[in-house]
Structures are given as structure tokens and as C-alpha cells.
């Protein structure tokens, strides 16, 4: 009996000690040393519908190799496009290993946590939720400066600002300008990467040929996903409130030496300078020397200059005086002012020298009068 008791005690002790031995499994200890050391997302923040890559790096911090049976990612909302890592492999002590998964965010904006799962062989699992943000904020386009009105063939500058309100950079940013009958310089502008909360100012010279709609479209990439945003502004023709406004006054037209001489003053009643101001007579008038055209040059606002034109004209009563000038950007402008001209003095041109009949009349008169005087004194 004495022999049975110690044996029972040993048996009980063994039974009691077996779970502790099981808890101290060497394989489980080694797997516990495997941790996720880094996660990278490309793009950092998804648009709804974007496809991206999640790269997860794990590191074995233990002193033993750990066998990995499977690595996978799954989520109820985020679609995982790539397959799981189903090949059994081993991560050595102190080594790191990366797992990449292609996902598609076909979900409304929000924050999602797809789970990374690492299945150890005979040592349980490692599950790690990865945070994915989905935002639909596009790049913003702001019109910084544009003319009040456009003019046919006139070049005007439009300044825009491209801003990135997102928390991740946009890459491959390119601004395109388009519009029917619109010539833009430059036709597009490459910005490249636009970091988060940064902006880029871009200027375009716009020359419309007809009233149209001007569109600025910004193409960019969020990761590998192309996106675009655009803004349009109407291109309406009209008179600028500040443009140069040359006016003619003090017009005087004389007909002399078989040509018209038109003199006057030209005022700039606008608020902008008029450059390269040139006046000439148009319509049925034929400019002649010495002032076929008159170059005034630059005319500041509220400034004036005198001018003179010489021309010939047929049977017309009005001559258009054409004023051409340019603004500071070199855009050509032209204004026409009708000026009434008097009829030419009728009659033929005077031939040089006194006509013989006139000379004869004068001589005959002198002779007759001389004779009359002589006769009157003789017959006194």
C-alpha cells in the first residue's frame, strides 16, 4: 500500500505538470516574436473606387526560425484583388519579410480596417488590422485673375491656382486648357507632384476668336489611379472697363493743294495705356505724303497728342479715320471714327502765268485811257 501512495502522488504530479509543459511550447514562443514592423499604402488615401497596394513588413525578432503557412488579407468592405500567400515558408531569426496585397476601395468615404492575417504552422495566427482612409476630395482649381471681358483676337492673361486639399500628394499633375476657338499659351502646364495642402499658381495667355467656354482641366494620379477635375469660365466679348479708349477731337479738315489736310487731337480717355498708336485715313480716302499715316506712339491715360493726316478723296463726304493701337500685352485694337470732309473746291487748276486775253484787256485799257487822257489835254 505504501508503494501505491507515492506512485499516485507522482502520477498526480505529472498530470498537474502536463499543462504547464504544454504552455511552454517552443514553436509558439518563436511565433510570438514575429511582429508587423511597417505598413505602407499606395496611395496613402484612397478615392472611392481606387485600386492600391498595401505592403506589410513583418520581422522575426526571436532567435528561432518561424514557419509560416499562410498570409492573407480580408475585409468585408474592401476588396482584396490579389491572392493570399499560401506557400509555406519560414522566416529566419532576425529577418524581415514583406507581403503586398492589391485592394480596391469600392466603398463610400470613411476609414476601414482590412485585416492582415499570418497563419503560423502549429503556432496560431497573427492578425493585424490595417487602416485605410477613403476620401473623395479632388484637387481644387481657383480662378485668381481674369479679364472682365475678352475680345476677339485679343490676348488676355488668366491666372489659376491648383490646390491639393488631400492629406496625401497627387502625382503627375498636368493642367490642360481647352475651348472652342481658343488659343492658349501654354497649351498645358506640367506641375508634377503636388504635396498635401500645397498649391501651385499657373498663368495662361488666352486668345479667343469667338465667344466660347474656357475649360481648365487638371489631370493627376492618386497612386496608379487617374483622376481629373475641371473648371470652366465663360468667354464673353465686350468692352473692358479699364481698356484704353482713344477719342478724336478738335478735328479740322482743309482742302488745299489738291489734297485734304486733317488735323486734330487724340485723347486716351481710358484707364490703360495705349501703345503704338497709329492713325490713318481709310475707306475711300487715299493717303498721300507727307502724312500718309501718323504715328503717335504711346499714349498714357488722360494724355493727348496732336496729329495730322493728308489724303485725297473722290466724291465722298465722310472719311473713316482708323486708329490702331496695342495694349500692354501687345493685343492689337482698332477703332474707326468717321469724319466729315468738305467738298473740294470746284474749278480747274490754275495754269501758271496770266492769260493772254487778260493781258490784252489790261494793255488795251491802258492804251485807251492813255489816249483819252492825252486827247482830253490836247482838246482842252
Amino acid at each position, binding site marked *: 500500500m505504501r508503494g501505491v501512495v507515492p506512485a499516485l502522488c507522482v502520477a498526480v504530479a505529472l498530470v498537474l505538470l502536463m499543462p504547464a509543459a504544454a504552455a511552454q511550447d517552443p514553436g509558439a514562443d518563436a511565433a510570438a516574436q514575429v511582429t508587423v514592423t511597417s505598413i505602407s499604402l499606395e496611395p496613402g488615401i484612397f478615392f472611392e473606387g481606387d485600386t492600391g497596394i498595401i505592403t506589410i513588413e513583418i520581422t522575426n525578432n526571436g532567435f528561432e526560425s518561424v514557419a509560416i503557412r499562410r498570409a492573407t488579407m480580408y475585409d468585408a468592405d474592401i476588396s482584396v484583388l490579389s491572392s493570399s500567400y499560401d506557400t509555406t515558408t519560414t522566416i529566419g531569426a532576425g529577418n524581415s519579410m514583406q507581403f503586398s496585397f492589391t485592394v480596391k476601395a469600392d466603398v463610400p468615404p470613411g476609414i476601414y480596417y482590412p485585416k492582415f492575417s499570418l497563419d503560423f504552422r502549429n503556432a496560431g495566427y497573427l492578425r493585424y488590422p490595417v487602416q485605410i482612409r477613403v476620401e473623395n476630395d479632388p484637387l481644387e482649381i481657383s480662378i485668381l485673375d481674369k479679364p472682365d471681358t475678352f475680345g476677339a483676337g485679343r490676348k488676355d492673361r488668366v491666372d489659376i491656382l491648383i490646390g491639393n486639399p488631400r492629406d496625401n500628394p497627387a502625382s503627375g499633375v498636368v493642367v490642360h486648357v481647352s475651348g472652342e476657338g481658343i488659343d492658349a499659351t501654354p497649351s498645358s502646364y506640367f506641375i508634377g507632384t503636388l504635396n498635401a495642402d500645397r498649391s501651385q499658381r499657373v498663368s495662361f495667355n488666352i486668345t479667343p476668336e469667338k465667344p466660347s467656354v474656357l475649360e481648365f482641366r487638371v489631370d493627376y494620379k492618386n497612386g496608379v489611379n487617374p483622376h481629373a477635375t475641371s473648371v470652366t469660365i465663360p468667354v464673353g466679348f465686350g468692352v473692358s472697363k479699364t481698356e484704353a479708349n482713344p477719342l478724336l477731337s478738335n478735328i*479740322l479738315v482743309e482742302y488745299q493743294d489738291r489734297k485734304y489736310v486733317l488735323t486734330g487731337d487724340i485723347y486716351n480717355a481710358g484707364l490703360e495705356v495705349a501703345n503704338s498708336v497709329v492713325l490713318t485715313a481709310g475707306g475711300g480716302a487715299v493717303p498721300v505724303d507727307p502724312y500718309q499715316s501718323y504715328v503717335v506712339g504711346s499714349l498714357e491715360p488722360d494724355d493727348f497728342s496732336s496729329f495730322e493726316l493728308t489724303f485725297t478723296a473722290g466724291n465722298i463726304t465722310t472719311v473713316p479715320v482708323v486708329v490702331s493701337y496695342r495694349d500692354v500685352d501687345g493685343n492689337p485694337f482698332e477703332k474707326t471714327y468717321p469724319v466729315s470732309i468738305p467738298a473740294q473746291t470746284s474749278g480747274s487748276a490754275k495754269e501758271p502765268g496770266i492769260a493772254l486775253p487778260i493781258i490784252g484787256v489790261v494793255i488795251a485799257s491802258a492804251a485807251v485811257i492813255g489816249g483819252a487822257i492825252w486827247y482830253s489835254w490836247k482838246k482842252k
Partner: protein
Amino acid sequence: MALQIGDLLFRPDAFFRRLVAEPESLNIPALIVIAGGLIAAAAAYIISGTYAKMFEAAAGAGMATFIGLFGAISAFIGFVLIWWIIFAGVFTVISMVFKGSGSFKRTLQCTGYGLLPVVIGSVISLLVALYYVPMIQAPVLTSFSDPAAIQKAMEGMLQDPAFREFTLISTAISVIFLAWSANLWIFGMQHARSLPLRQAAVTVLVPVIIYIVYVLFMAMNGIRLLGGS
């Protein structure tokens, strides 16, 4: 009447001798002066047309009519005043220096008769004007706002070859026929103011020569006198 006009023009001494023997009458001299005034007015109206064309565009057709009428009326009054009244007055004043006697009415009568050659000269000048004026190419003004331009236009017209030629020829005709009238006035003053012939000549020639010098001077400077030819 024809015989009397012949005597006036070619035998003025006999004509005025007979005239002073008759009662004083200004009827015929007045007719001569009025005829001369009308001819001068017609000539002035024609010449004013040139100025009217110059200003018509700036002032309108009304201004052209006004200029023409103003020129014609001025020429008529000028002719009557200068050639008849003033010349007769000057003759009377000068003849007083030589103790001349006779009424002013008689002087007016003789001066009026003596204007017949000037009237004939005015007719010739009128014809000359009709020949030259269409050839004058006057500058045309469209505004009165620039005095310098107006002055330039006036100078341009005065420098017009046809205008200058007309001025010189009309002045020459005027001087030639004025000389004829002066010859008549000498005999007229001799009998109207009872002067010796030499003193009558001085009485007439002094104002006439002064007038001729003045007319020639103005003609050379391009300014046309109103009235007379």
C-alpha cells in the same frame, strides 16, 4: 446822252465847263455811283463765295449766305462812301487850301460824273472775277475751334495762285481806270471849285496817288480791299 458821255470821257474840260453853267443836280451822278456800287457788290458777292466755301463746312450754308450778303452790302456802301462822299470831301478840303470856291453839291456832282471810268473798270474787274474765282482753290475749314488753323487757311487762300493773280490784275485795272477818273476829276475840280488847272491837279492827284499807293501796298500784301475794283 451818248454825246455827253463821250465829252465826259474824252473832252472833260468842255463837259464840266458846260456842266457848271447848268443848275446843280445829283441825279445822273447818283445813278453812276449806284451803278458802280451794284457792280462792286456783285463782284464782292462772287469773291465772298470763295470765303463762304472755306467756312461753309464749319458754319453751315447759312454762314455762306451771310458772308456773301455781308460782302455785297459792304462793297456797295464802301463804293458810295469812299469813291463819292469821301473823295468829294477830300477834294473840297484840299481845294480850300487853294482858295477854291463852289458848293459841296457841285463837287459831289463833278466827282460823281468823274467816277464813270471807275465804274467801267469795275465792270471789267467783275468779268475778270468771273474768270478767276472758279479757279481759286480755297482751303476748307470744318471747325472754328483752332484760330491758328483758321489763320493758316486764310493764308492758304491768299497764297492761291489764281487768287493772287486776280488780286494783281484787278488792282492794275483799278489803278488804270482810277487814273482816267482822276483826269476827269482834275477838270471837274477846275470848274466846280474855280481853281487854276495846276491847283486842281494837285487837289485831285494828292489823294488819288495816296490811295493808289495804299491799294498797291495792300495788293502786294495779299489783302483785298472791299469795294471798288
